């Protein structure tokens, strides 16, 4: 293998293995920053050894062993320093240091990846920090790649990640996969982060930086991973169905001259049948699990109505209107109100808890609207300019229901 080939092979292996490696390290050392540092040490060891010795048969186990060796060295040093501090009594506030059991790294308890997902989407973090950390820890994206994807300067993203890790340490995070009631709320946050990543990518039209469409793929990948890890959670499948069906239209969303093509005008022959099939299967699974009225499953069911219609005229608007009504009932949000014709209920301004749009720095982001021309996606700029439907009716083809987030 040539040097460049080996480097590429190492990078590839690293992106595949680092989430589980960092997840296992976090479980044992209870410190995300330290876990990442030890994982990086393992990567350095791989860069030293693999070019001459070749990539090992089981690179995951190799990296784990390397991380453990470096961890033992480093933690012994830390223990020594802290003992000295204690002995001279210089810092009585210093918490007693307990050596983590690094041999536990080899216990495959199967939820290290989930642990990392829930850590990255921890409620102590801001939405933007959750996204950055998720892409960095789960997607293996570099700071530079995340910065390009979000059209933000490099140092901003780097700072965001450093601060996020500090916040987690301060919040005395337990780094455990939540259970029972806590799981429900935490899972909703995870799904929200994945869908935001998807929308950031989906909003970009072809011809833009490839990093933005790559966000769609990363989000889909995360959704698929999550569905394999949590096969009993209906809304995981609901979100996966929604993303698969939306992604199935990506080829049809732009005309040859680059202008966006609305859902009703799209050439349905360009829709990707494999993704539609996967989306419908995921939706069916969500429904089997009793998740018919979850907000993502409902949005997926609306998307599925379009996916099933062979022509725009064949669209089942009655069913779509009923699904929107149900969606407004279970998840009252401005997005839903936008799509259900009841103009008086529309808010005048974005609710304060919506995070800032990364693209239109002056506007707040509305998670699922796709109406802002500069963003092409997710913000409140020009909110007032959106034409309001005149009366209550089944959503006709030109209402916001059809050219809003449905395209």
């Amino acid at each position: 293998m040539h040097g460049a080939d080996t480097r590429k092979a190492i990078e590839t292996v690293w992106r595949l293995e680092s989430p589980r490696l960092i997840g296992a390290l976090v479980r044992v050392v209870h410190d995300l920053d330290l876990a990442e540092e030890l994982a990086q040490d393992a990567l350095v060891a791989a860069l030293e050894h693999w070019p001459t010795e070749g990539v090992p048969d089981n690179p995951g186990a190799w990296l784990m062993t390397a991380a453990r060796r470096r961890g033992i060295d480093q933690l012994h040093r830390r223990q020594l320093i802290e003992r000295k501090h204690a002995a001279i009594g210089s810092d009585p506030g210093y918490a007693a240091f307990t050596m983590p059991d690094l041999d536990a790294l080899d216990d495959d308890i199967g939820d290290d990846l989930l642990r990392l997902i829930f850590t990255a989407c921890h409620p102590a973090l801001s939405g933007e920090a959750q996204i950055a950390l998720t892409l960095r820890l789960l997607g293996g994206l570099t700071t530079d790649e995340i910065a390009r994807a979000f059209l933000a300067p490099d140092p901003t993203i780097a700072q965001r990640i450093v601060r996020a890790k500090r916040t987690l340490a301060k919040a005395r995070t337990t780094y455990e996969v939540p259970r029972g009631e806590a799981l429900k709320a935490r899972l909703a946050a995870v799904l929200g982060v994945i869908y935001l990543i998807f929308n950031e990518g989906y909003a970009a039209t072809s011809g833009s930086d490839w990093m933005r469409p790559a966000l769609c793929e990363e989000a889909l990948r995360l959704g698929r991973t999550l569905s394999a890890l949590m096969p009993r959670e209906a809304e995981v499948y609901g979100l996966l169905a929604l993303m698969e069906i939306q992604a199935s239209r990506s080829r049809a969303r732009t005309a040859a001259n680059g202008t966006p093509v609305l859902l009703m005008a799209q050439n349905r022959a360009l829709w990707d049948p494999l993704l539609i099939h996967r989306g419908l299967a995921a939706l069916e699974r969500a429904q089997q699990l009793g998740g018919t009225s979850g907000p993502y499953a409902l949005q997926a069911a609306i998307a599925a109505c379009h996916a099933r219609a062979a022509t725009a005229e064949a669209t089942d608007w009655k069913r779509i209107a009923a699904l929107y009504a149900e969606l407004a009932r279970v998840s009252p949000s401005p997005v839903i109100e936008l799509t259900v014709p009841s103009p008086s209920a529309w808010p005048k301004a974005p609710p304060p808890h919506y995070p800032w749009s990364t693209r239109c720095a002056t506007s707040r982001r509305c998670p699922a609207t796709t109406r802002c021309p500069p963003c092409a996606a997710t913000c409140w700029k020009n909110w007032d300019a959106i034409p309001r439907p005149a009366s209550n009716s089944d959503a006709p083809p030109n209402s916001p229901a059809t050219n809003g987030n449905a395209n």
Partner: protein
Amino acid sequence: MRCMVMVKATRESETGVLPTAGQLAEMTRFNEELAKAGVLLVGEGLAPSARGKRVHFDGHGGRHATDGPFAETKELVAGLWVWQVRSMEEALEWVRRCPAPFEGECQIEIRPLLEAEDFGAALSPELRAAEERLRAGLASRD
């Protein structure tokens, strides 16, 4: 990117011999790994070519069908996956981890699927310009 990963047939696979319980268990484990990594889109095994048919297009509007089995065993496909990967290197890395599909000599072939960007390359300057216009707010979705 997506790629199709094809397990090529062997003389044994063409006789219709099914995998042993051990082989099946190993392959199932591998498929689970693919699913957990969010890579697996499709995974199917194919019946031997004896149950297949071929249609020959003669280039002058004529076509005729022949029944299997077909002779060139090594070129036949015995099973396939469609994977969503970040690069061909990643696909190669997954194949490296794949249990040997058959005993003895056999082959797996990885081929990228053509995606939208493969068709639209000629249009990219125009598309880029359109994207710029979009960003500048001159074009709208309505």
